[in-house]
Structure formats: structure tokens, C-alpha cells
């Protein structure tokens, strides 16, 4: 749905007090609207009020140092209720009833949004919040000065692709490899999978060796575990001594210990038991040696812990990390123009605070990176098994150190010193296990020589069966574990692959749309730029391939081609460039908001270029000339521009109004509201408030004088409107007085003698009691009683230019100073 702006109503917000009498600015939806206000009257407050309504924030207040308490200045400090209210009355282009969206903010910064017809006000405001709806000079300066990346991001919004840009960034963040891997613990899981694969390989090798010792042949490549069990069972079952232990049992259920007991019973002797135990010990120590991590694995842990300690020395804990990240976020923002100013202390140094923050954050990133590598390296080692070996080889008085290694890594206590101890301990375990194995093997060989060969062979078969049982079990458990972690990693990989694909597809679509829309914007931008500057300068905008960056340059600068816009263009031309881009984008890709508010966007332009820009808006861009174009609302304090506004204000396609007042009391539109100004002034004077009444008296006086000039067709000097606000009224009185004298001298004056005398009396009162002090700024000299007399004198002065056509018909202005009607 598209909307035009029919009215803004403001009370208690920024520089607009207007307690009980909201400032109401009505706009013509089918005309260009201009609002002139002298400095300090509240023009920018109006712009900021609409900014707050649409965006929920006023950036210039939010970036103030905390001590300034910028948030407390959203509201007008003089408003008695301490609540700011901004209402936007919107007219649907498609027809139907107007909708008023009212936004309030209280002293606790609580924002409420309501609509006149119960619609979702936040949704409407969100729709209206497009990049080109609220434009001021800073917006255009930023566009040129911004980094290509930030410029590109804001430009996406101009092209109507802001939401798509946000989605693309979101998808890219989701598929970011590092964040993704961290969330799913991919590196540790991959290392764990590798460990299990190693254990499975080891178990299969053990199966092969044990099966060979038991059966006397290598397992067949195609044999299943069950087939291996059947053959192994058959071998044991054929040994008559242990047959009772094998009958009617599955291979896994045959107890090697019970079989050895039968052998012992058959021939007796402690050597038989000892041989069995030695065979078990030999297997156990071989397995232990296989389970020890390689020396280079432990050395890697020590190296990583050393690097981690070194990296940690460059950091100062989590609190500082949060500080640096916040610092980076603030100073990287487009609103933080001087990167050398510190947001915390406001000091301006010689180096970039942003770069400093990034350097500090990078130090933390290095710690994270090394920690991740350490975690991955730790996960590749079977620590529970290693702890068992340590316990089995423990020396008296020795402390066990291989426990909770993962927890130690996570808590940051896996220091280089600990890694050094660990390296020594694993080395000791390697020596101890080798020593234990050698002892068992030596003793076993000695016993085998002493015992009868047949029973040695049976015992060895039984021990081989025990090893085979264990290896088959390990292989099956490892297989299950491997299948589990593989499935988990496979699911994670499916998500990763999906997100990468989703992100890639969307990025390409957004890039294509952006390129397409950029191509459409550029010609119109050039046309607008040419209409403003009238010089052989041709702007160019382009996207960096595969990136968000938006590059600006000059296709032509007089005879030069392909040159830097930032380097060559004057400030005014840079602004003209930016204005052209924004207007072109708004013309082509306007959204729900079919209105633009421009706040002092011409401040860098000279009178000629101001005129060209306004003519461009009036004749080629906005309603009513372009019936489907946007509605323009232009705010300015420029007195030259006001002349242009005044000239156009009387035409069919333009509406002009002027606002006056003070932040302390009220700001009111001058057009069609002179009675409100008069009433408000009288109320202030009757309340004894001369200070706030004085600006209104000037406003009322100027209005009355201008009305006399217009109604009585009194010629005035061309530069009459260019005077400052201290002298304007005096010049207007002077111009009127000169014409009265001229016609009196020519004996053509229509005023009667009493009116001429009344003029002089009124002017004397106005000048002596008001203008004399106003012109010198001595406003403290005003007294309420005297100013009430001034108000009466102003009315008397106007009355001198009126007559009563018929008795009781009311008084009206003379047609001119020499024509009654």
C-alpha cells in the first residue's frame, strides 16, 4: 500500500512544546510543499520528530556521550506533561479513508504506536521507513564519504532491496564456516571420528592376529563376524579338555577362565595359571602400547599450549573484549565520522580508534583460533584409555595427571607447563608399558619351555580365543560409535551444504536484481545531475563484482574520463551527485512511502544550483507534474530559497508556508493562522509573559504588513524579503510609508486624512515600544502592558488601509493606494 502525507502533528517533542495546541502542518498531497523557518524555530525538530516516528530513534542524540544523556532530549524540556506526541496523517493513494498513526514517547523512553483505525501502526511505519523518505544534507555527505561497503548497503535500501540485503547477510552469517563449525562442534567431532576409526582398525588387526593364532589361518576377506565366531567356536569345541565349557554356548559366552581351569584340573600346577595370566598380560600391554598417542601428537599439544599462552598475554579478559567489540561497532558505524575520536572519552588522537579496536579484537580472535586447534588436537587422543594405563603403571607417591583433560582445555588450565609434564608422563608410560610387555613375554617364553607343548598350545588357543572375543566386541562397539558420529556429521554436513546452497542462490539473485536496478538508476541519475549542475560532468555508479561495495566515480569530468568523484568534485557537486542518486532511486523504486521530506538539502548549493534543483523537483520529479511521482515536502531556512518558495507558492502546483515560534512555548504555521498567532500572543501578554510573546508580535506584525502590501498592491523593493528578522518589519513599514507619501504627493491617495494620521500614530507606537528594542536585541526591555498596546497599534495600522463598502457590510482593504475598490 502506498501513502501520501497529509498532516504532521507534534507536541512536546524536541524543539516543539505547543502544550495543549499541537503544531499542525497540513500538506497538499498533489503539490510540492515548502516550509520556511528562520533558524532556531524548530524546522529540524519537525524532521527529527518524523524520523523518530518512522525509525524509533534520533541518531544524533543516541551517539552523544553518556554524560550528555541524549535520550532525555527527545522530549521538549518545557512541556508540562513530559510526553512527546507525533502524529502522521496518511492518505492512501489507492483511495479510502486517511489513517493517522500516533507515536508517543514518555520520560522513561517508552514508545507507543496507535492508529486511528486500529491497524498495526508499527507495520505501517516500518513500511514507510525507506532510505529516501527522510533526507538531509548529512545523508548526502555520508553517501559520498562513506566506505564502498557501507555505501553499497545503504544503496540496497534505495533500490528497494534492503530486505533482500538483510536476508542475504543473514544467510551468509548462518553459513559462515567458523560460526557454524563452532556451534556444531564439527572439529572435535571430526577428531573423535578419526580416533574411533583408528580404534576400529586396531580392533580389526587384533581380530586378524587372534584368529590366526586360534584357527591357524587368516580370516577370509568376505567372512562376517558371525562366520568368524562359528569357526573359532568349532576350534575350541574340538579340544576335548575344554569341550564341556564350549558345548551349547555361543562363542562370546565361552569363558576363557573356566577353560583354563579345566586345563589346570587336567594337569594341575601353578605354572599353567601363570602362563595364562602372562598371555593376558602380554595382550594387555600390547594394546596399551597401541593406545598411546604418537610423540608428535603430544609435542603438538605442547606447541599449541605455548602459542595459546603467548596469545593470551595480548588480551585482558572478557570485559575488555566486550569493550573493544562495542568500540568497533560504534566507530565502524557510518554515523561516527571521525574515526580518531574515542566514543568513551571523546578525545581525538592521531590514530584511528576503529583500527585500534579491530587490532585488539584480532588478538582475541587469535586466542579463539588457537584454542579451537588445541581442542581439536586433544579430541584426537583417547584420554580415558591413557588414564587407565597411567593408573596401571603408577609409581608409589606419583600423582595421576591424565584426568579431565578436556575440562582442563575448556577452563584454560591446559598451560604449557602442564603440557610439558604431560609430555614427560606419556614418555614414561611408553617406557613402562614396553618394559611390562618385555617382562611378560620373557617370562611366558620361559614357562613355555618348561611346560608340555600340547598344553601350552591349548592354553595359547584359549588366550587367543579370549583376545578374539575382546577384539570382536571392540570392533562392533567401535563400529556402532563410528556409525553414530558419522551419521551426526553427515546431518551437520547436510545442513551446512543446504545453507551454503541457499545463501549462494539468494546472493546471486540479489546481485542480479541489484545490477539490474542499478542499470536503471544510472541514466536517470545522470539526467538529474545534468539538470542541476549544467556542466560536462557525468557521474557513474557501479557494483564491485561479487561484492556489496558500491563504487562512485565520474565517467566524464570535462575532457577527463573515468576519474575519482571524491577527489575532483566540489562539495556542492558531490551533494548534487548524491541528491541525483537518491532522487533517481526514489523515482524508480519508491515503496509504501510516496513522500519525501528534504531538510535543508541545499545548504551547500549556491543560488543558481538551488534554483536548478528546485526546478528539477518541480518540473521533472514530483507531483503534480509527475502524477505517479512522490509528494515533496521541503524544509529550508534559506531566505533566497524562500523567495523561490513565495514565487511558486501562489501557483497551482506549489504550497508554501512559514512557521514561527520558540521551543519554550509554541511553534505555529503562519499561513492561514494569523488569528491563532494573535490569540496565542494575547494570551501570553495577558499572562505577563513578554519574553515569549515578542517573537510572535514580530510574526503577527510581518503577517499584517505583508497582507497590506499584497491586498493593496503596494510595490516594494526586490530585496525586501532578504533582510534579517530584526529589520524585516521596519523595511516593510518603510516601503508602505514611501508609497503612501508618493500617492499623497500626487494627490491620488485613497486613504482619508484620519487614516493617514492613524498610520503615523500606529507606526510611532510600534516603533517606539517594539521595533526599536527588537532591532537591537534588547528584548528584556519589553513590558507586557506596552506590548498589548503594540498589538492594538498593529490592528489600528491595518485598519487604516480598509474601508466599509456599505454600512454594516464589514471593512475590507482598499484595492490599491489610489483605488477604493
Amino acid at each position: 500500500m502506498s501513502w501520501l502525507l497529509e498532516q504532521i502533528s507534534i507536541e512536546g517533542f524536541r524543539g516543539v512544546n505547543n502544550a495543549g495546541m499541537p503544531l499542525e502542518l497540513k500538506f497538499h498531497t498533489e503539490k510540492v510543499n515548502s516550509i520556511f523557518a528562520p533558524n532556531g524555530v524548530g524546522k529540524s525538530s519537525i524532521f527529527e520528530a518524523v524520523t523518530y516516528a518512522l525509525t524509533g530513534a534520533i541518531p544524533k542524540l543516541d551517539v552523544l556521550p553518556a554524560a550528555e544523556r541524549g535520550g532525555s532530549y527527545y522530549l521538549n524540556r518545557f512541556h508540562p506533561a513530559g510526553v512527546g506526541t507525533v502524529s502522521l496523517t496518511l492518505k492512501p493513494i489507492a483511495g479510502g479513508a486517511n489513517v493517522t498513526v500516533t507515536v508517543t514517547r514518555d520520560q522513561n523512553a517508552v514508545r507507543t504506536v496507535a492508529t486511528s483505525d486500529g491497524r498495526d501502526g508499527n507495520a505501517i511505519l516500518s513500511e514507510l521507513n525507506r532510505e529516501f523518505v527522510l533526507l538531509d544534507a548529512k545523508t548526502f555527505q555520508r553517501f559520498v564519504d562513506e566506505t564502498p561497503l557501507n555505501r553499497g548497503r545503504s544503496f540496497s535500501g534505495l533500490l528497494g532491496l534492503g530486505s533482500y540485503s538483510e536476508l542475504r547477510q543473514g544467510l551468509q552469517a548462518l553459513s559462515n564456516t567458523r560460526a557454524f563449525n563452532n556451534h556444531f562442534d564439527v572439529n572435535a567431532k571430526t577428531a573423535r571420528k578419526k580416533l574411533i576409526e583408528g580404534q576400529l582398525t586396531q580392533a580389526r588387526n587384533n581380530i586378524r592376529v587372534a584368529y590366526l593364532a586360534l584357527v591357524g589361518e587368516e580370516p577370509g576377506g568376505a567372512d562376517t563376524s558371525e562366520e568368524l565366531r562359528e569357526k573359532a567356536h568349532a576350534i575350541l569345541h574340538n579340544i576335548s579338555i575344554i569341550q564341556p565349557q564350549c558345548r551349547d554356548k555361543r562363542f562370546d559366552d565361552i569363558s576363557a577362565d573356566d577353560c583354563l581351569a579345566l586345563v589346570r584340573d587336567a594337569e594341575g600346577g601353578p605354572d599353567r595359571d601363570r602362563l595364562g595370566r602372562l598371555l593376558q598380560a602380554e595382550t594387555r600391554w600390547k594394546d596399551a602400547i597401541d593406545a598411546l598417542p604418537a610423540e608428535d601428537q603430544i609435542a603438538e599439544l605442547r606447541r599449541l599450549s605455548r602459542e595459546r599462552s603467548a596469545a593470551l598475554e595480548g588480551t585482558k579478559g572478557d570485559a575488555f573484549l566486550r569493550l573493544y567489540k562495542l568500540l568497533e561497532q560504534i566507530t565502524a558505524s557510518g554515523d561516527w565520522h571521525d574515526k580518531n575520536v574515542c566514543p568513551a572519552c571523546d578525545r581525538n588522537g592521531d590514530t584511528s580508534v576503529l583500527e585500534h579496536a579491530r587490532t585488539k579484537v584480532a588478538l582475541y580472535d587469535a586466542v579463539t583460533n588457537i584454542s579451537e586447534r588445541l581442542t581439536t588436537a586433544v579430541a584426537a587422543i583417547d584420554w580415558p584409555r591413557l588414564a587407565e594405563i597411567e593408573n596401571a603403571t603408577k609409581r608409589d607417591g606419583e600423582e595421576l595427571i591424565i584426568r579431565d583433560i578436556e575440562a582442563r582445555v575448556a577452563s584454560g588450565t591446559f598451560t604449557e607447563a602442564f603440557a610439558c609434564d604431560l609430555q614427560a608422563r606419556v614418555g614414561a608410560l611408553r617406557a613402562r608399558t614396553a618394559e611390562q610387555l618385555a617382562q611378560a613375554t620373557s617370562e611366558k617364553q620361559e614357562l613355555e619351555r618348561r611346560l608340555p607343548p600340547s598344553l601350552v598350545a591349548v592354553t595359547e588357543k584359549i588366550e587367543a580365543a579370549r583376545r578374539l572375543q575382546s577384539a570382536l566386541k571392540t570392533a562392533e562397539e567401535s563400529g556402532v560409535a563410528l556409525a553414530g558420529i558419522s551419521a551426526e556429521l553427515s546431518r551437520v554436513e547436510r545442513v551446512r551444504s543446504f545453507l551454503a546452497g541457499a545463501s549462494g542462490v539468494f546472493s546471486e539473485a540479489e546481485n542480479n536484481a541489484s545490477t539490474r536496478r542499478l542499470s536503471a538508476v544510472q541514466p536517470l541519475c545522470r539526467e538529474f545531475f545534468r539538470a542541476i549542475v549544467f556542466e560536462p560532468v557525468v557521474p557513474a555508479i557501479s557494483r564491485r563484482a561479487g561484492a556489496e561495495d558500491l563504487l562512485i566515480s565520474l565517467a566524464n569530468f570535462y575532457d577527463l574520463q573515468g576519474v575519482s568523484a571524491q577527489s575532483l568534485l566540489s562539495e556542492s557537486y558531490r551533494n548534487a551527485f548524491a541528491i541525483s542518486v537518491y532522487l533517481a532511486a526514489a523515482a524508480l523504486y519508491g515503496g509504501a512511502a510516496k513522500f519525501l521530506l528534504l531538510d535543508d538539502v541545499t545548504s551547500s548549493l549556491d543560488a543558481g544550483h538551488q534554483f536548478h534543483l528546485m526546478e528539477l523537483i518541480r518540473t521533472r520529479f514530483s507531483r503534480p507534474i509527475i502524477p505517479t511521482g512522490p509528494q515533496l515536502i521541503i524544509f529550508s531556512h534559506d531566505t533566497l530559497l524562500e523567495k523561490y518558495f513565495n514565487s511558486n507558492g501562489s501557483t497551482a502546483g506549489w504550497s508554501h508556508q512559514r512557521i514561527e515560534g520558540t521551543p519554550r512555548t509554541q511553534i505555529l504555521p503562519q499561513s492561514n493562522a494569523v488569528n491563532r498567532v494573535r490569540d496565542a500572543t494575547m494570551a501570553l501578554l495577558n499572562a505577563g509573559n513578554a519574553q515569549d510573546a515578542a517573537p510572535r508580535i514580530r510574526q503577527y506584525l510581518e503577517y499584517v504588513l505583508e497582507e497590506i502590501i499584497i491586498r493593496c498592491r503596494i510595490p516594494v523593493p526586490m530585496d525586501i524579503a532578504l533582510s534579517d528578522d530584526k529589520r524585516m518589519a521596519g523595511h516593510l513599514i518603510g516601503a508602505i510609508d514611501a508609497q503612501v507619501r508618493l500617492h499623497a504627493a500626487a494627490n491620488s491617495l485613497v486613504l482619508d486624512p484620519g487614516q493617514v494620521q492613524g498610520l503615523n500614530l500606529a507606526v510611532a507606537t510600534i516603533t517606539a515600544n517594539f521595533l526599536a528594542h527588537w532591532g537591537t536585541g534588547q528584548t528584556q526591555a519589553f513590558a507586557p502592558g506596552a506590548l498589548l498596546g503594540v498589538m492594538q497599534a498593529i490592528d489600528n495600522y491595518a485598519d487604516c488601509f480598509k474601508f466599509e463598502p456599505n454600512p454594516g457590510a464589514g471593512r475590507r482593504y482598499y484595492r490599491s493606494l489610489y483605488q477604493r475598490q
Partner: protein
Amino acid sequence: MAAHNNSFAIDDQLNTPDNLARYAQVLQAMDASLGAALAPYLASLASGQRVDMVAIWDALYVATKPTPNLPSQSGE
């Protein structure tokens, strides 16, 4: 059409929600269950709000859970 299920172009004639709906269809063509899991988050991601990425990752991971082959209950 099916051959181009995995390609997507922003249609200038459509508004943002409609384009996102079309994109959601493309995602489901890429991977039905993951596409369905991600679709509810597209509007939030496009709005520029702070989105809980962990919640999205977890929802996607849950969507990869294999569905058991249930015996037919139709009796046919």
C-alpha cells in the same frame, strides 16, 4: 520448471513477501525438510532484526533427523 527448481530470481513485479515465498519454494525444492525448517525464519532475517542463529541451526539439524519407515496403515 522442475529442472530449474534450484534457481531463483527476484521478481521486480512482486513485493518482498511474495518474493520470499517464492524463495521458500526454491529452498524446499533444494531440500524439502530443510527448506520447510528455514522458511519460517526468512521474514525475520529479511527484517534486519537480531535473529537467534542458534535456534535456526538447531531447527535445521532437527529437520535432518531420519524419519522411521512406518508400516502402511491404509490396509491396502
